[in-house]
């Protein structure tokens, strides 16, 4: 008995000693924002999280009185996890931390600098009976003990000594076999992995995070009208697209939010339409009439991976290339009001431009559309994370679209906000978006090229007084060579050449009416009429001096001389220049003459063809004409 009493008092002593090595009660003060200096806590659990494409660790720490499961290890301390110095029960001294408020009123404790006081193996047990601090950072009233609390809340890797009678311990995501349906945590649902969804099995429930959500699209055709919205869903096993039509569309559109997790069941499964989605799944889902959609709290959802971002620095965007899809995170420096525009096709769109900047001291304009544009709040310079924005070469570099998350809860976002507050907001920014600038790249891409038939069909040039511009890839079939040259006044007027057509007086002198002068010389200048055509049609266009010389390969002076002296070679010049192909930039402008309105097409730019790029583009288009081959299929069998 003496031995037992001795043992017991020894244990008590040890307990007291150990509690003294923790800074009891500090967590409540830290989460309130108090300046506490350095403090000691005990690590009770750790979990790897994939966040923003980065390895992050979430910790459950305790000060003996309270525990906090919303603690994140700053990435510079990841090595402490790698070298196993943060095993459970380890006592650490936190030397530097920051407490951040994130969307949803939650407070996150970020541990930035720490050192080990005593390794877990030496401590060997949980000190005290800490009570979980609430997600808003407040301590629960003292009477709420945590003995009955579901050990799975917060999804920590718990010490296994106490939880035998509790609901099944959550297995860390990394060791779970993805293809077996594991009895789920809360909610009473049996969860299946997304990767196991097939048309052959109708009863399944998935627990998935919404990674993207489209606006509601409505249509009204002869065959009927309808509406839908779509979303991308993701869990650890994979991803899948889901669409809700009509009543389900109305019912769930507002409820479903990007970034949140839901139990979803009772959808029909069909083959995926790859034209609308690049997701890696042969199937896609449609909400049935009796679909089940149940929100999952974040605490219960931590095994579902968060959106993975691959952020590019804003300064790197100019290298991204036209039409690249990028993820970007930055502080919203300024934003404009949303505007309503009508496209040429008659569609009404809401558009909003905001400017994002980051610590590379670069800024770029991001265009938001639809409901994203309307909902956006830019008043307090929020951190904006965008997934899947498209890079466009309009006005230098601009971004368009993408899924937008404001003030996201991850390290990158916290760091950006800290940089901004610390003086980033006063920095000089290099703007990638420049008004009126066309950035480099090969002339026009084939998507914006018009065929001549389209130009005629669309009545380009008739719709506006000022003239409309278009680009076409055409071949010159004919030059009106006999009227190509004219004699021009060589006078310099106010630093520029007069160039007006002169009258031939017949005696070796020439009269310029504009300068009111007789001159005894002139300059040959070109005004070419030519026929440009493609496989659809041909059109007459005019081409002036500079471009004409480019097409003929010699100066107007030389062409003029040949016309006077060597008819054969003169004809040959035009013959050589015929049947060459270029990308023509054209201006179509309506001209009214004697009650007759005709559109005149003028060449304002000529680019040589980039055959390699065109061939690559054509191969893609040819392939697409035969139908798109799904990614997983061996292309060589079909191509």
């Amino acid at each position, binding site marked *: 008995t003496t031995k037992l009493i001795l043992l017991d008092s020894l244990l008590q002593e040890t307990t007291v000693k150990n509690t003294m090595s923790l800074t009891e009660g500090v967590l409540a003060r830290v989460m309130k924002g108090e300046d506490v200096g350095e403090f000691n806590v005990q690590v009770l659990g750790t979990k790897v999280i994939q966040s923003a494409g980065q390895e992050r660790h979430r910790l459950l720490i305790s000060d003996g009185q309270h525990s906090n499961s919303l603690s994140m290890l700053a990435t510079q301390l990841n090595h402490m996890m790698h070298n196993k110095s943060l095993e459970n029960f380890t006592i650490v001294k936190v030397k530097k931390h920051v407490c951040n408020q994130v969307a949803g009123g939650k407070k996150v404790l970020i541990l930035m600098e720490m050192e080990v006081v005593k390794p877990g193996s030496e401590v060997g047990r949980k000190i005290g009976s800490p009570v979980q601090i609430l997600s808003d950072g407040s301590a629960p009233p003292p009477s709420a003990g945590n003995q009955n609390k579901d050990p799975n809340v917060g999804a920590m890797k718990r010490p296994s000594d106490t939880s035998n009678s509790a609901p099944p311990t959550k297995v860390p995501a990394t060791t779970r076999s993805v293809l077996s349906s594991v009895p789920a945590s809360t909610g009473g649902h049996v969860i299946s992995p997304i990767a196991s969804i097939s048309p052959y099995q109708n009863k399944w429930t998935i627990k998935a995070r919404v990674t993207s959500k489209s606006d509601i699209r409505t249509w009204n055709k002869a065959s009927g009208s309808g509406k839908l919205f779509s979303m991308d869903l993701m869990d650890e096993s994979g991803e899948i697209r889901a669409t809700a039509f009509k009543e389900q569309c109305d019912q769930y559109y507002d409820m479903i939010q990007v970034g949140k997790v839901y139990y979803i069941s009772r959808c029909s499964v069909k083959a995926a339409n790859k034209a609308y989605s690049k997701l890696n799944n042969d199937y896609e889902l449609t909400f049935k009439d009796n679909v089940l959609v149940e929100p999952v709290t974040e605490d219960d959802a931590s095994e579902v991976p968060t959106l993975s971002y691959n952020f590019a620095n804003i300064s790197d965007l100019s290298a991204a290339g036209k039409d690249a899809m990028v993820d970007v995170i930055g502080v919203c420096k300024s934003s404009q009001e949303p505007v309503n525009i009508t496209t040429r096709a008659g569609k009404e769109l809401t558009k909003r431009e905001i400017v994002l900047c980051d610590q590379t001291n670069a800024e770029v304009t991001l265009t938001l559309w639809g409901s994203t544009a309307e909902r956006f709040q830019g008043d307090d310079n929020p951190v904006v994370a965008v997934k899947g924005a498209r890079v466009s070469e309009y006005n230098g570099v601009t971004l368009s679209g993408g899924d937008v998350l404001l003030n996201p809860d991850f390290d990158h976002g916290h760091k950006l906000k800290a940089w901004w507050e610390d003086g980033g907001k006063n920095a000089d920014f290099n703007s990638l978006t420049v008004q009126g600038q066309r950035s480099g790249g090969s002339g026009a891409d084939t998507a914006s090229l018009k065929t001549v038939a389209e130009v005629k069909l669309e009545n380009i040039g008739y719709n506006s007084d000022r003239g409309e511009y278009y680009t076409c890839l055409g071949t010159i079939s004919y030059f009106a060579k006999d009227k190509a040259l004219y004699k021009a006044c060589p006078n310099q007027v106010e630093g520029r050449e007069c160039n007006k057509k002169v009258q031939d007086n017949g005696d070796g002198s020439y009269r310029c009416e504009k300068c009111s002068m007789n001159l005894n010389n002139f300059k040959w200048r070109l005004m070419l009429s030519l026929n440009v055509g493609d496989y659809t049609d041909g059109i007459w266009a005019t081409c002036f001096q500079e471009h004409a010389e480019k097409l003929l390969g010699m100066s107007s002076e030389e062409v003029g001389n040949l016309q006077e002296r060597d008819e054969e070679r003169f004809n040959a010049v035009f013959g050589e220049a015929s049947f060459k192909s270029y990308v023509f930039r054209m201006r179509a402008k309506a001209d009214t003459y004697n009650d007759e309105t005709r559109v005149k097409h003028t060449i304002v730019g000529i680019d040589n063809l980039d055959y*390699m790029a065109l061939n690559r583009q054509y191969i893609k288009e040819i392939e697409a004409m035969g139908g798109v081959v799904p990614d997983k299929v061996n292309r060589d069998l079909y*191509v």
Partner: protein
Amino acid sequence: MSEQKSSPSLRVNAALLGRYIGQSVHIVCEVQEINAAEVRVICCDGQPITIKKSPNQNIETSDVSRNVEIIAKVIDERTAELESAIPIPGGENFDFATYNEMVKLANNRFSDLFS
């Protein structure tokens, strides 16, 4: 070239040779080695084949590029008999990958257009 062609040229890569045994095909490739009796080339799909020739036949490659178009009669899946060859003009930057895609499309999915 002596025969009159009445149908479109057959353009192939190494993988397609076996389909046209006994026929004359156009092979766009890069010359690796020229001997008296044969020429080793890499086809547009990256695979090597052997072109048999007689000692007095010659394959011209330009100064800057070894890319040629060879017209040959197919003997088997890896061999063909040289009929004629021309260097590809401006050929040092020839985009074999895109050309190969075209060859595949023309011989498989869209072969109707080329028969």
